[in-house]
Structures are given as C-alpha cells and as structure tokens.
C-alpha cells in the first residue's frame, strides 16, 4: 500500500481543485471523527457507511493512497474483528495526516 502515491499526480488535473482541497480535508477529518465515534460503540454499519463516504471523496480528489486504505477498512468493517479494525483506523488516520501534509507541500494549500 505504501507503494501507492499519495495523490495520483504531484500536479492537480484541474487547478481549480486546489481551492477545494481544504474543504475536502475538512470533510474527511470530520467524517473520520464520526467514524471513530461509531467504532467506539461498535456501530459497524455506520463505520462502513462513513468509510464508503470518505472513499468516494478520496477517489474524487485522486487521493489514491487514502482511497485504498479506507477501502481496506470498509472491507474489514464487514467482519466483527475490533482489533483488526482498530489497526485499520490508526493506519487510515496516518494516511489522512500524510495526505494533508503532502497537499500542503505540493499544492500549497493553507
């Protein structure tokens, strides 16, 4: 998974997306908070739903490493394995943070 680039390209396919990236990260981080809350109360349907939503956003912004990681978490939420799911949550948080730092560096978002 680490071989996947963080974003599909170091150049945005459309320059106007640059203005939208802060909105994208804000929504993803908010959704991740909700996903963490759902995980804590073992609401796996909600974990699946929020993971699906984050995946759709990540795909739309070509954040392919995030998309791949959250897809793994989505699959994991179908089986009741809280230890594995907890590990996936930690890894997703790392990828979200990494993607944000990457976007700040390469796309100069604030």
């Amino acid at each position, binding site marked *: 998974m680490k071989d996947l680039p963080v974003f599909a390209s170091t150049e945005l396919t459309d320059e106007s997306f640059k203005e939208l990236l802060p909105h994208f990260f804000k929504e993803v981080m908010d959704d991740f908070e909700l996903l963490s809350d759902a995980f804590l109360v073992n609401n796996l349907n909600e974990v699946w739903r929020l993971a699906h939503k984050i995946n759709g*956003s990540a795909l739309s912004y070509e954040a392919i490493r995030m998309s791949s990681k959250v897809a793994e978490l989505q699959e994991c939420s179908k089986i009741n394995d809280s230890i594995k799911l907890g590990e996936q949550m930690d890894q997703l948080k790392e990828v979200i943070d990494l993607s944000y730092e990457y976007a700040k560096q390469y796309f100069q978002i604030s």
Partner: protein
Amino acid sequence: MVEIGSILLIDDSESVNSRNYSLLGSMKLFGEIKAYSNPYQAIKHLEKDFNKSNLDLLPSIIFLDIEMPEMDAFDFLNKYLDIESIVLSNYKPRIVIVSNYILKDRYLDETNKYKTYGVIGHIRKPIDKADILDLLEENFGK
C-alpha cells in the same frame, strides 16, 4: 452537439459535489448547475421547479450517487417515479449513476432495470471530462 441544459448533482459528500460542480462548470457546456447532499431535498427541488411549469428550470442530466445514507440511488428513483405529475409529463431527464466501484450484482441489475426510466449509464469516481464528453456524445450527439 445539441445544447445541453442544466445539471443536478446529488452526492452525500459536499466536497464531491463541489469538485464535480467545478469540473462541469469549467467545461462551459451546461446551464445552471445545482448540487444537493441530501437526496430528499433534491426530490423537493425537482417537484418545486416542475410545479412552476418551467421546464427550463429542470435539469437535463442528473448525476446520482449510488450509495447515500438517507437513501440509495434506486430508492431515490422510486421516490422520483412516485411523482405522477412529473412521470406523466414530457420531462425526461437523463440520469447517470455515479459510484466508487465498477457496478456488479444487485447494483448492476438495478441500474439496467432503471434504463427504461431515464438511466443512461454509470460513471466511476473520479468523474473526468473525458467521461462527460463520451456521455454527451452518446446521448446528446447529432
């Protein structure tokens, strides 16, 4: 290519709607673009504009996310098809199903089933300009 009317985007992610709004707007091929993150509000919007009896207000193409928390794309289509005044009218929008993955199983069957009711196809995220141009060529081309 014939003139394309307005667009309705329905996706539970506001950032996805913003991105697609920006992409479609930059193509300068469409009229007004509206976006809803709540499918119930989208239905209300369609009904309200239809009741104003101004077909120009209504979208020519609806991009519909397949999986949303309030209802999925097919629940949305069922609710839309329940609005008798619209269904019995001449207003026939083209509907494009948008999903994270290639459609299979139930979603593929349902998409095919709704082709009778205006579903013209399926696009995977991220939507790009080439997808849109292909879609327009197939459905609005001369």
